Structure formats: structure tokens, C-alpha cells
């Protein structure tokens, strides 16, 4: 399989994730869609590492996974805080920033 096929799959997943961030209203699902976009970037990085024959792209992919794990921890903490304060779990309702 040529490397272009992997990049096209990556483009599909990234577009699906970007569309999902815009379409969905549940912040949990929006976080999942951000994960999709990060995974698409990971696939492209690993594919380019294979194309060039060096492993720096794979290291980059591992660092992206670390950043994604941090984003998940903080995002889920925010959602739990929203739930504790009896706020609606819906990004259309949460329009105002206030303490």
C-alpha cells in the first residue's frame, strides 16, 4: 500500500472529527471528536515516519498521545465540575463565562 492511502484515511478521520466538533452539543462527545482529530494527526505522522524511514515521526506521535491524555483529564474534570454545579451539559446553554 502506498503512503497516500494512509494519508487519505487520515484526512477522512480528521474531517469527520472537525465536523463532529461543530455539529454535536454534548461536551463529552466534543472531547471525543477532538480525540478523533488528534488520532488522524497521529496516523499522518506515523505514515510520514514510514515514508522517510526515520522514527522521529513516531516520537512525535507518542508526545501527541501524552498531550491528548492531558486534554482528556482536564476536559473530563471540567465536565464533572459542571455536573456538580447542576449546570446543563450542553454547550449551547453554556454561553456565559462567570464564576
Amino acid at each position, binding site marked *: 500500500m502506498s503512503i497516500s492511502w494512509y494519508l487519505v484515511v487520515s484526512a477522512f478521520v480528521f474531517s469527520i472529527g472537525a465536523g463532529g466538533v*461543530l455539529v454535536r452539543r454534548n461536551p463529552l462527545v466534543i472531547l471525543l471528536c477532538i480525540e478523533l482529530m488528534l488520532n488522524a494527526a497521529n496516523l499522518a505522522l506515523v505514515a510520514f515516519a514510514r515514508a522517510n524511514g526515520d522514527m522521529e515521526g513516531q516520537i512525535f506521535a507518542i508526545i501527541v498521545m501524552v498531550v491528548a491524555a492531558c486534554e482528556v483529564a482536564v476536559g473530563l474534570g471540567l465536565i464533572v465540575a459542571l455536573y456538580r454545579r447542576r449546570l446543563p451539559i450542553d454547550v449551547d446553554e453554556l454561553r456565559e463565562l462567570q464564576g
Partner: protein
Amino acid sequence: MAEVIFFIAAIGVIAGALGTVLLRNAFYAVLSLVGHLISLAALFLLLRAEFVAAAQVVVYAGAVMVLYVFVVAYVGGVDQELTGAGTGTGLRGVSALFGIVLLVELCIAILGSSLESLDTQGTGFFAAFGSPPEIGELLLTKFLLAFEAASFLLLVAAVGAVILARRRSGLEDPREVSVADLMRSGEGGTLSDEKERGSLAEAAGPPNL
């Protein structure tokens, strides 16, 4: 053989991604993302990235998704309509159109690029390409700064998540009644108004200065 595995895994990846976006129940969306991640690990194996594939399955599909499942179970499966009240359906259509335009643009960029290495199956590689010893050596020599920064970032994110999700002392649920209040009300009748007003004033936090 590699082609067959690629197409099976690619269909799994795209179907998992579509399921994540389109399923209404957040719990099913998380499960769909787990399928997506496992198919993606198969693609990583085809690209000779064994360590990344193993880390993907163990860390991502294992640990991170368990965190998601716990939060979905805690918050409750909020069944949400894809179309409904709130933002109008027109904006939703524009959003979907944006996704399609993005896909077309990315495909043009990939297929129209003049990088010759994209049309090959990749250059030759040495036997230990993508194995844990090589990854570890690179992480501890050439990418030591990124490695340390990532570990520090994980520490900061863990502390931040605990602080965000902790039970705040001033913002407790007014419906919750503590044991001390119950005993006090048993001794001296009902709760006095002053006491309740005082606790509400405390709940509002420090005054704005």
C-alpha cells in the same frame, strides 16, 4: 495480504469515527471510539510502528477510555438529538458542509503534492524500526527535552483535573443536610433562619473587592 488488512482496518477506522459522531448516546459513542482506536493500532502495525500501536491499545483504548466510561456513567447518558432545539438546523448543515469542504481540500493537498515518497511503500528500514529499544533511545537522547516536558505536563494536568473536579467547600448542594445539622435540629428545633442565611452568604464566596 497487507492490502486486505489495510482495507479491513481502514473501514474499521472510518466506521468507528462516523459512529462516534453520529450515535446519540454518549456511551455508545465512547464504545465506537474504542473500536476506532483498535483499528487504528492495526494501521500503525502495518506502518511498522509496533511501540506506538501497543501504546495506543494499552494507554488510549485501555486507560483513557475507561476514564471516559466512568465520566459518562457519572454524568448520565444524556440522550441528545442530532437535530433539535437550540442552534438551528441551518447552522448544522453549514457545519457538515464545512467538514466535507475540509475533506476535499485535504485530499487535493495529499494527492496533488509532489512528494515522490508518498507514492512508494516507504523507504527501506532497519530491522529494529519502531521497536521499544529504539524509541527509548531516541526519547532519552535526542528528544530528552520533549520527554521531560511531557512528564511535567502530565503532572500539571493531573493536579489540574483533581482541583477542577474536587468538591468545593463553599458551593455545596443546599439540599444536602450534614449530620451535625440534623443533631442540632434534634436538640433545638428547626434550623434558624440566621444560620441558613449565613451559610448561603458563605457559599457565595469572598466579597468582590
